[in-house]
């Protein structure tokens, strides 16, 4: 009810106005008579009384006004419904990775939730309706309200946990969808955030069913292959139980085991396991062989950089920039042979040489033969030039600010950069950062990356002169540059992403996706042959398209979701009365219509009384 709303409160003040009118009317109205001699002997004891005497008309008007005010304010009734036919149930399931954990007696936590839900369906009258909802990254209605129990059971069977942590926002959205139900059964392996339950304002309609007993779990937290033949790799394993555990860890690279050992993990402790150095670059796979409750976090992939010698070209008219960029390239991979050249001296590098990576600053990329190119502060079109540019430059700004960066979102404080070029990246490029010119409002891309055929092309729209990338106050610019270089030189046939991420790979117009569990699904590419999908299962995905198959490795780890020792819930439990009464819960029923009818009846009654008085007193001003 919204009586606290200022507008509705104003409606409520109409009652005060009515009382004021009656007080005014009852303040002894003056009427004219033919002569006082007819009234001189009439005693008027009441005339001295100050007690307010309100007649039935007042109460009828007050009733009508009060009913209308409450109707406008949206008064509702919360009534306790006895179990009866035709009730609406919502079965809400946590589909996070934890629900895929295996119980001691076999079966997953989701299976246990299904069993309880089926029991609820079986105990309910045949006319009851069930809605099945799941949530992890997002809320999803698996089965809309229907009265056929078998359809609801089929929907339960179709539920599948995904290897991501269930987000509170998804739970909030699921409860919002379930809000119209008379009874909501929430199934999860850990207590939901109390704030989410309170915000949903479901009252006593929600029953929380916590499934799964506390279980031990080992998880690979991180994996770093190190530099082949140079530095050791590291694998971090965490024991997420309150008991010590034995952990058999296997690390493979290039089809060979590079580490295999049994480790003793202290309760709630992390083990940093060094291995290597690896002999060659490529994917590195670590897995825990010891069985535990949750398998999704028992394996992890990483990519070790290639050890093959590669050639990089740094082309810039500014000597300082050439020096800075060369140092950054070598920091990423010391196996690079970097050639720094001045575009004003065409003979400073071999134009016929093929480079694996070319960093081209404030000059034309024409005449550079490279597999991957990073255009920095791309050159604007020359006056009168009709030659199409690889990255169209629309205009320049004197000072730009870096406002948001992929992976970091909107920066808390914009990073002040130097001059920048406002570029219009072609559609096959994916923006990675955006910024704005000083005293401007419209943002424009400051970094983008994409594939033009076989060439990987990245662009940084801002100038990096004056040691911008080495300025500690503008570290975001350096991070953005390094991240972009990593993407440019990464092998295109191997992608490693965390679960829940969207993956875009070039695979042609039509492709097939082979999930880690072996299921195959079709993918349709866009006009540039890119297919996009979301990895929700930890393991190796295979994208088979026109060219060679590409592997996408999905890593899962979430400190909260992987911790399977969550205590039993205490905050949301059905009350004893609710348990004894079965699935009885409170329901909210708006009573606008009855209030309107009540107001109408009061007004009709008032009209009848007025008409009666008019007839009785033969007056028209009753």
């Amino acid at each position, binding site marked *: 009810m919204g009586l606290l709303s200022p507008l509705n409160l104003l409606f409520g003040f109409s009652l005060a106005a009515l009382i004021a009118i009656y007080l005014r009317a009852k303040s002894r109205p*003056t009427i004219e008579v*033919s*002569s006082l001699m007819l*009234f001189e*002997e009439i*005693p008027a004891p009441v005339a001295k009384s100050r007690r307010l005497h309100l007649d039935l008309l007042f109460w009828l008007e007050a009733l009508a006004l009060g009913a209308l005010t409450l109707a406008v304010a949206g008064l509702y009734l919360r009534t306790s419904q006895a179990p009866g036919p035709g009730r609406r149930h919502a079965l809400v399931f946590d589909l996070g990775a934890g629900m895929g954990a295996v119980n001691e007696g076999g079966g997953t936590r989701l299976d246990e939730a299904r069993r309880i839900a089926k029991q609820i369906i079986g105990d309910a009258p045949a006319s009851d309706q069930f809605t099945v909802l799941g949530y992890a990254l997002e809320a999803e209605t698996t089965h809309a309200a229907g009265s056929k129990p078998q359809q609801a059971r089929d929907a339960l069977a179709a539920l599948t946990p995904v290897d991501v942590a269930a987000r509170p926002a998804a739970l909030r959205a699921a409860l919002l969808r379930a809000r119209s139900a008379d009874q909501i059964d929430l199934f999860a392996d850990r207590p939901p955030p109390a704030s989410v339950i309170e915000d949903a304002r479901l009252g006593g309609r929600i029953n929380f069913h916590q499934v799964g007993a506390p279980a031990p779990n080992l998880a690979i937290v991180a994996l770093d292959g190190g530099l082949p033949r140079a530095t050791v790799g590291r694998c971090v394993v965490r024991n997420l139980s309150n008991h010590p555990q034995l952990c058999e860890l296997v690390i493979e690279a290039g089809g060979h085991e590079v580490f295999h050992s049994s480790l003793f993990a202290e309760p709630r402790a992390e083990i940093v396991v060094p291995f290597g150095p690896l002999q060659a670059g490529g994917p590195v796979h670590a897995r825990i062989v010891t069985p535990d409750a949750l398998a999704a976090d028992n394996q992890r992939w990483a990519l070790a950089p290639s050890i093959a010698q590669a050639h990089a070209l740094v082309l810039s008219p500014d000597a300082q920039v050439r020096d800075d960029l060369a140092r950054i390239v070598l920091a990423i991979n010391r196996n690079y042979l970097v050639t720094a050249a001045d575009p004003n001296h065409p003979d400073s590098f071999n134009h016929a040489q093929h480079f694996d990576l070319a960093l081209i600053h404030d000059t034309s990329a024409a005449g550079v033969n490279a597999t991957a190119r990073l255009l920095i502060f791309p050159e604007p079109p020359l006056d009168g030039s009709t030659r199409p540019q690889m990255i169209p430059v629309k205009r320049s700004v004197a000072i730009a600010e870096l406002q948001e960066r992929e992976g970091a979102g909107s920066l808390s404080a914009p990073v002040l950069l130097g001059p920048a070029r406002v570029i219009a990246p072609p559609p096959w490029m994916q923006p990675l950062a955006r910024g704005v010119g000083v005293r401007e409002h419209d943002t424009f891309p400051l970094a983008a990356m994409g594939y033009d055929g076989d060439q990987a092309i990245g662009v940084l729209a801002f100038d990096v002169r004056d040691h911008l990338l080495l300025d500690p106050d503008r570290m975001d610019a350096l991070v953005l540059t390094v991240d972009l270089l990593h993407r440019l030189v990464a092998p295109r046939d191997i992608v490693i992403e965390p679960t829940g991420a969207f993956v875009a790979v070039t695979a042609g117009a039509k492709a097939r996706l082979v999930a880690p569990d072996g299921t195959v699904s079709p993918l349709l590419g866009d006009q540039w042959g890119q297919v996009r999908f979301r990895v929700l299962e930890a393991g190796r995905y295979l994208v088979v398209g026109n060219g060679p198959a590409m592997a996408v490795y999905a890593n899962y780890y979430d400190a909260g979701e992987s911790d399977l020792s969550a205590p039993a819930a205490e905050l949301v439990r059905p009350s004893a009365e609710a348990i004894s009464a079965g699935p009885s819960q409170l329901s909210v029923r708006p009573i606008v219509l009855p209030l309107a009818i009540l107001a109408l009846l009061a007004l009709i009654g008032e009209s009848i009384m007025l008409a009666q008085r008019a007839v009785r007193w*033969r007056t028209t001003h009753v």
Partner: protein
Amino acid sequence: MALATRAFEPEFLQKLDGLMLSTRRARTRRAGQRIIGRHQGGGIEPENFREYAHGDDLRYLDWNAFARLDDLTIRTFRAERQLEITIMVDASASMGMPADDDKIGLALTLGAGLAFIGMSENDQVRFAAFSGRRGGSRLETTPFRSRRETYVDFRPFITGLKAGGETRLATAASELIQDRRVPGMVIVISDFLVGAGDYEEALGNLAGVGHEVKVLHVLGDRESTGNYPPGNYRVRDCETGELRDVSFGPTAAEACRRRIAEHTAGLSGFCTRRGMMYAQAFGASHLNEIVTREFPRLGVMN
């Protein structure tokens, strides 16, 4: 005032047609007989013969009888004479209260009806409305009309009269007397919501100069029954402006009716004692009953 227009509706006048207003005063006088005063009208219809007496008008001596019988014989005639009827209507503010009772309309309608009846005998009829304005008295009269054809000439006066001012009945009666007309009939139509001394003085003075006085007491439905909406009110006298706090209800209504009854009994008793005809006209809704039941009390007959 809408009620006053009924006085000129054919249905209303048709009911009054054929009625006659009786008077205690002789409508005829004997011509030839010695009388004092200005009225010496000639004979029209032979009535009798009698012996001559000293002082008789020799114009009425029957010379034929003297020639045959040698006796002086006076021929007497009966001559009809016209009666002056003044219908005094109270036009004070109290006649306009309560507004829905339309007492002034009722008074004018009944007065017009009596005038119409009076004109059937070719009596001279006039209206006189009285009220008190700005401390003085105002008596507004119409010319005498005697033929029914001229009855409609009263219409502007009847329909245009508004209630207002104080009730100055005694003053109005004095003004009427000062007009020095031949004694006739005066029909006073009022609510008589004044002190007993006031109306006794007025009516007594009128009767004292020889007028035959008839009293028609007019009251409204509401004030005669005390039927006011219940509740606490402050009542204001429409003539004096005096205020009084009262509480309307069944008890008050009963007291009001008792007061009316006492006031009516006082007026009626006074009229009876002074040989005046008294009739009541309580409630405009009872117009037909008043005509049929109360008009005979005023001497209206078929």
